[in-house]
């Protein structure tokens, strides 16, 4: 074998698949015309390539098209939103020419991408915060004060509460602020003694009676109180306003369902702690709302009538929800959504689709026996279901797993009839 033949042999794959520069390929082809061995080697490769072209490409099912394109649309919208909210420093792709794209970004662009990456920015922010905190600790109020020795640390007196931050704090603040409550505070700060439930004498004491009978206000009476009342009113209004579903999305807007729950929890906690409250917590919120209404806040005014039952977020179409969940791989949500589809008025296609994907979810989780029950219901009840071929294939796969070869063959026969046009689908 000559050197030229060895070179030809080493570059045979590149030559056969056109990955050589033209002048080099020309040289090798000229050599092949003169060398029978090399020519035969090249001919054999090209013959196999020719035979390989006889194998046609395969097509996947079309049922996934809608799911994937729907997801792509949502993702594109997300990208578009991010683009409009980001500060425009450089038009996307402006620095990348087609030639650059083919070769990959340059070192400059890689460095730029590295220093502009969100991860690096986050790390830099965290590092900065840590450094600042360190310096503040060094020079802050906890430094050594004159008169202290060694490592003694001076504790400043706690800052007294002036404005409560929520109802619980309001109650505590009122209790602490009143002179009568100071007495009980001193009692609680006395040297520790075994817990004793408060005696009847204590309960009937003037201080305690005064505290219990004092009207509970929402937020005090200052300017902060008005702000809090406005916030609360608007929050309540928002909570009461039904949210409209946004097409193509499955995000749920959080509503004010937290407010009554947290109020109930606070009530329970108070009752358990022995602090009996005459006024139910709900009164506080209602009073705040009434204040807001009286103040003329339009959102709250519209809801001045008795509070309706908390509205849960109106669901998006169950069918859409099930489809999205199935696409994400969340079979639990998909099963629940598709079950709801079957329990409400739906179109024939939606029912069939739901049954199909209930079976598919079972199959995904390895429960072929259950999956087959859904598939058989589909096969029998929705003969013209447009994705019947997919469902038959999936059912056939389950039949094979369970050893039901007769049924698998029946599925195959039905697939053949549909593909051959003997059986029509929608």
């Amino acid at each position: 074998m000559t050197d030229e033949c060895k070179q030809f042999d080493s570059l045979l794959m590149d030559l056969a698949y056109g990955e050589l520069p033209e002048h080099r390929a020309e040289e090798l082809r000229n050599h092949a015309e003169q060398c029978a061995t090399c020519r035969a080697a090249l001919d054999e490769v090209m013959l196999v390539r020719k035979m390989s072209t006889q194998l046609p490409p395969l097509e996947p099912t079309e049922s996934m098209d809608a799911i994937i394109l729907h997801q792509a649309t949502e993702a594109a919208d997300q990208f578009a939103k991010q683009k409009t909210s980001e500060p425009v420093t450089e038009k996307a792709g402006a620095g990348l020419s087609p030639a650059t794209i083919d070769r990959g970004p340059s070192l400059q662009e890689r460095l730029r991408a590295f220093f502009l990456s969100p991860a690096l920015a986050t790390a830099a922010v965290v590092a900065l915060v840590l450094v600042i905190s360190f310096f503040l600790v060094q020079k802050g109020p906890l430094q050594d004060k004159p008169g202290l020795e060694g490592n003694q640390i001076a504790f400043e007196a706690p800052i007294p509460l002036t404005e409560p931050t929520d109802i619980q704090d309001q109650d505590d603040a009122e209790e602490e602020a009143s002179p009568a409550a100071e007495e009980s505070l001193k009692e609680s700060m006395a040297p520790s003694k075994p817990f004793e439930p408060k005696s009847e004498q204590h309960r009937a004491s003037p201080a305690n009676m005064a505290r219990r009978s004092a009207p509970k206000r929402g937020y005090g009476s200052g300017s902060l109180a008005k702000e809090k009342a406005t916030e609360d009113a608007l929050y309540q209004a928002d909570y009461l306003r039904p949210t409209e579903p946004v097409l193509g999305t499955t995000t749920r807007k959080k509503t004010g369902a937290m407010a009554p729950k947290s109020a109930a929890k606070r009530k329970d906690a108070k009752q358990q702690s022995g602090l009996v409250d005459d006024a139910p917590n709900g009164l506080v919120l209602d009073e705040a709302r009434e204040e807001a209404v009286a103040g003329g806040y339009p959102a709250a005014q519209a809801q001045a009538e008795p509070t309706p039952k908390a509205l849960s977020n109106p669901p998006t179409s169950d069918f859409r929800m099930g489809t999205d969940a199935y696409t994400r791989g969340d079979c639990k949500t998909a099963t629940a959504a598709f079950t709801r589809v079957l329990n409400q008025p739906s179109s024939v296609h939606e029912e069939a689709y739901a049954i199909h994907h209930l079976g598919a979810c079972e199959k995904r989780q390895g429960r072929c026996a259950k999956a087959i029950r859904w598939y058989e219901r589909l096969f029998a009840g929705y003969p013209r279901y447009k994705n019947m071929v997919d469902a038959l294939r999936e059912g056939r796969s389950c039949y094979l797993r369970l050893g039901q070869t007769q049924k698998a063959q029946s599925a195959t026969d039905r697939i053949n009839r549909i593909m051959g046009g003997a059986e029509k689908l929608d």
Partner: protein
Amino acid sequence: MQRFQNGDRDAFEGLYQRYKAPIFTFLVRQYTSQDNANEITQEVFIRVIRNAASFRHGSKFATWIFTIARNLAIDFLRKAKHRAYASLDQQMGDNGPTLGDRIAGNSPNPDQASAQSNLRDDITQALAKLPDDQREVFLLREYHGLPFREIATVVNAKEGTVKSRMRYALETLRHELAHHADYARTLP
């Protein structure tokens, strides 16, 4: 892909239509049944959509998507390894046809006695006989047009190794399909 990353809704559809069949074909011929390949293909595109923001134009899209497909298929097969399947090669009774013979696929009607049909069947069987690493290189180069350099990235091997595997695959196929050589020479 760049247009899709910029929020162009229709941009992805072009990519999807272009790569849907190649990805599916690759998965069927290299790894698994059509049912499973459908599921994996869907998962491939969902992964592409979810990770679109992280796609950098340092490599070609084809390389990226085929790498995703290959990795997902390998994961799938690893999980499915322990499940019991009815073998498609198991004969139904004495001298009966195998289950695989009786299951319909996308290939032409096996009743057709044309040389083309026989060739297709023999190519399919010959491909199945190739070792996995040779077969995937052959499929990616021959049917999906990926250059050897890109294939090396997909399969995580050196370019020289990829060319060697291709060479061995071609030799094996030539040997398996030798009886079709005369017919193949008449093809355009």
